[in-house]
């Protein structure tokens, strides 16, 4: 599964994407925990970051699937 980082998250983590393996039935919340454990500097992610799956906003309980594009979004600032 591809995890993408934007804005200050990309800056803190030092990369724009990582690929991680996630067990079946994992939620967005589980992905956050997995990243914090497996990816250096991913501790910058809050417990409940804004997350989009396949370019749609989702809640932390959202269940992800293989092939999903999971994006971690810092607080939005458009306009």
């Amino acid at each position, binding site marked *: 599964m591809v995890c993408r980082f934007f804005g200050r998250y990309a800056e803190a983590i030092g990369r724009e994407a990582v690929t991680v393996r996630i067990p079946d039935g994992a939620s967005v919340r589980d992905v956050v925990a997995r990243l914090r454990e497996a990816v250096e500097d991913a501790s910058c992610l809050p417990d409940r970051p804004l997350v989009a799956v396949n*370019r749609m906003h989702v809640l932390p309980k959202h269940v992800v699937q293989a092939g999903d594009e999971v994006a971690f979004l810092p607080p939005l600032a458009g306009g």
Partner: protein
Amino acid sequence: MRVTIGEGPVDLSAILDAVADGAHGAAVLFVGSVRRAPEDGPVAAIEYTAYEAMVREEGQRILDEAVERWPGLIVRLHHRVGVVPRGQPSIAVAASTGHRPDAFDAARWVVDEAKRRLPVWKREQFDDGSARWRENADGAPPLDTV
């Protein structure tokens, strides 16, 4: 394409022209620009970055929802990315309808939703060369948490 995103000056006339319709008597154009108010500090420019594919998709969802709310609405949304010097527009929304209250309501709703939901970030650049990430003060979460 009803949602556009790109670098370079925003063509406001093109956005307004795109919502012109012989049966629509009212059009509203909103233009948001990089401002330099005393409380913001000496902002020279704002660098906007975006999750562009999602801006297009989420932007289109916002416009589709607006058309459901205001049937017949014609609406366009553009967000500029890259470095936007102060005084220049960063976002534009145009809406046209048969009668004016709907044009105002729809344009305002789309701007509010765009600010709340579009994955865009800004980094303020100051006169002295320093920079900082800046969040929207009025940012409600894009999804109500359960």
